[in-house]
C-alpha cells in the first residue's frame, strides 16, 4: 500500500511541475506585456518601468519561473498590486466557500440519485425510469448558468424564498449560511444528480443480472431488500469513482455558480481578477485550482485501492 502511494506520488511530480509551468507561462508568455496589461494602455512610462521592476519582468523567463517556483514552494505566491494583498492568503480565505458549495452539491446529487436509482432498479424501464431518464438527460443538456438563472427566477423572483445573491458565513448561523448557498448548491447538485443517476442505473441493472441476486430472491429476500442491501452496495464503488473524477469539472461549475450568485469563492476571485487584469492573482488561483485537482485525484486513487484491492494487484 505504502509502495503504491509512493509510486503515485513520484508519477505526480512531473505533472505538478508541468501544471505550475503551464500556469506560469499562460500568464507570462502570452501576447502583451504584463505591466502594460495591468496598468492599462494610458499608463505613464515611469509607472510601467516601476511595475516591471517590482514584478521582476526584466529577467529572462526561465529564471523568473524558477524564482517564482522557489517562492511558491515556500508558500509565497506573490503580492497582488491590484488588491494590495498577498496572493496565497487571499485564495485560501476563499477556498472554504468553493469547497462548501461543491460538497453540498455533491451531497444533493447523491441524496437524490440513490433513492431514484433504487426505484428504477425495482422496476426497470417502467414509467419512473423513463421520467427520471428524461430528467437526467435534460439536466445534462442545461448549462449550469441557465439552470441557476431558472432557480433565481423561480425561488428568488416569483417566490421570494431564497436570496439570489450574497453569502452568509457559518459564523452568522448555520441556517443563514445554508439559506445563502441553497440555490448555488442546488444548481451544482442538479447536474451531479444526473451524472450519478445515470452511472448508478447502468451499474445496478448490470448487478441485477448477477447470480447472487437470484440466490437472494430464492432465499425469499424481498425485492426492496435485494436492491438496497445487495445491488446498491455493489454499485457504490462506481458512484465513488464518478464523485471523485467529477471534482475537476465541478470546479468549472463552481466558477460559473459563484459568478452568477456573487459568492466570494475561488472561482469568483479568478473571474474578477481576470476583469481587473490582476495577472499575479490569476496565476495563483489557476495554480491552486490545478494543484488541488491533482491532489484530489490522487486521494481518489488511494481510496479506490483501499476499497477494492483488485486494482492494486491487477493494475500493476
Amino acid at each position: 500500500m505504502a509502495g503504491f502511494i509512493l509510486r503515485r506520488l513520484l508519477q505526480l511530480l512531473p505533472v505538478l511541475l508541468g501544471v505550475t509551468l503551464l500556469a506560469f507561462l499562460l500568464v507570462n508568455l502570452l501576447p502583451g506585456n504584463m505591466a502594460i496589461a495591468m496598468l492599462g494602455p494610458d499608463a505613464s512610462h515611469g509607472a510601467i518601468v516601476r511595475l516591471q521592476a517590482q514584478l521582476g519582468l526584466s529577467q529572462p523567463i526561465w529564471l523568473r519561473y524558477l524564482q517564482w517556483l522557489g517562492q511558491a514552494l515556500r508558500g509565497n505566491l506573490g503580492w497582488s498590486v491590484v488588491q494590495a494583498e498577498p496572493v496565497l492568503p487571499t485564495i485560501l480565505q476563499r477556498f472554504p466557500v468553493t469547497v462548501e458549495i461543491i460538497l453540498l452539491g455533491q451531497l444533493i446529487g447523491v441524496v437524490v440519485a440513490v433513492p431514484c436509482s433504487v426505484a428504477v432498479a425495482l422496476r426497470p424501464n417502467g414509467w419512473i425510469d423513463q421520467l427520471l431518464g428524461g430528467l437526467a438527460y435534460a439536466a445534462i443538456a442545461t448549462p449550469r448558468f441557465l439552470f441557476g438563472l431558472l432557480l433565481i427566477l423561480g425561488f428568488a423572483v416569483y417566490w421570494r424564498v431564497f436570496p439570489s445573491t450574497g453569502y452568509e458565513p457559518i459564523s452568522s448561523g448555520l441556517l443563514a449560511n445554508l439559506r445563502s448557498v441553497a440555490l448555488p448548491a442546488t444548481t451544482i447538485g442538479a447536474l451531479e444528480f444526473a451524472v450519478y443517476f445515470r452511472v448508478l442505473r447502468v451499474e445496478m441493472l448490470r448487478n441485477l443480472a448477477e447470480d447472487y441476486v437470484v440466490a437472494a430472491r430464492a432465499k425469499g429476500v424481498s425485492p426492496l431488500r435485494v436492491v438496497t442491501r445487495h445491488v446498491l452496495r455493489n454499485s457504490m464503488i462506481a458512484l465513488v469513482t464518478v464523485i471523485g473524477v467529477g471534482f475537476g469539472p465541478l470546479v468549472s461549475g463552481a466558477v460559473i455558480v459563484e459568478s452568477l450568485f456573487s459568492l466570494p469563492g475561488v472561482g469568483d476571485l479568478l473571474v474578477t481578477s481576470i476583469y481587473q487584469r490582476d495577472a499575479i492573482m490569476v496565476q495563483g488561483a489557476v495554480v491552486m485550482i490545478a494543484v488541488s485537482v491533482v491532489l484530489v485525484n490522487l486521494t481518489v486513487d488511494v481510496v479506490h485501492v483501499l476499497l477494492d484491492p483488485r486494482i492494486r494487484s491487477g493494475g500493476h
Partner: protein
Amino acid sequence: MGISVIATPAARPLPVRLPGGIGLWCWGGVLGLIVALCYLGPLVLPLPSPDATDFGNVLAPIGTAGHLLGTDSLGRDLLSRCLYGGRVSLAVSVGAVCLGLVVGGGLGIIAGYRGGWVDAVISRGLDVLFAFPGLVLALTVASYLGPSVRNVTLAIAFYTVPAYARMARAGTLRVRTQNFVRAAEMFGARGFYIGTRHILPNVLFLMLTYALVLIGIAMVIEASLSFLGLGVPPPQPSWGQLIAMGKQDISDAPHIALVPGAFLFLTITAFNRLGDVLQTRYG
C-alpha cells in the same frame, strides 16, 4: 412491484434500452432545423438586423407583431439575435472540436503507435492539461488572447485537444498489435503511412461519433465564457452572451434570457442524443 425482473434476471438480456431509428431521425431533424434556421433564416425570413434598435418596442413579449420572439431592453429583435448568435455558437464549438480532432487525434495516434518516451512525454503533457478544469483553462487562455471568435475557439480547443488525444491513444493501443499493422510494418511501411492508412480508419469512426458529444460540451464552455463576459465580444451576439444580458431583466422580462436558453438547450440536447444514438448503434 417488478418482482419478475428481479426473480428471473438471467432469462432476460440486459434491460438497457437501445435507441431506435426514430431517435436518430427526430434529433437529426431538430438539429438540421436549428442549423438551417441560423444560417438560412436571416437570408429568407423578413427579420430586422440583430443590432437594429426599436425604442418603441422595448422588452416586447413573445408574439409581438414584427418581433415574433419579443425584444430586449434596447428593442432589438430576439429571434434575429438568436439566429445570428447561433451562428457564432455553432461555428466556435464545431471549430474547437475540429481542431481537437486533428491536433488531438494526431497526438494520440503518435503517442499510441510510437510508445516509449514519445508516449511518456505526450501522456504527461495531457495529464498536465487534464489537471486544469476545462472552463478555468479556457477562461485564462481567452482572457490573455483577447476576445474574438478565433481566440475563443482556440481557448476551447485546450479542452477538446486532450480529450481527443486520450481517446485516439486508447484506440491506437487496441489496433497497433493486430496483424494488419504488423504486416504493414513487415512490408516496410513508414510510421506516417501506417498511422494514416491503417490506424486512423480504425479510430476515426469512434472519434466522429464522440465529436457530437464534444460539440455539446464545447457549446456549454463557449456559452459559459460568453456568460462571464469573456467570450465573443458584443455587439456580435452568441447564445451565452444573450442569456447573460437577459439576466438583468430576469424579473420583468424573463423571456429575454429564456429564449436563447431554449435554443441552447435544444441544440445541446440534439447533439448529445445523436451522439448517444450513434455510439450505441455503431460504437
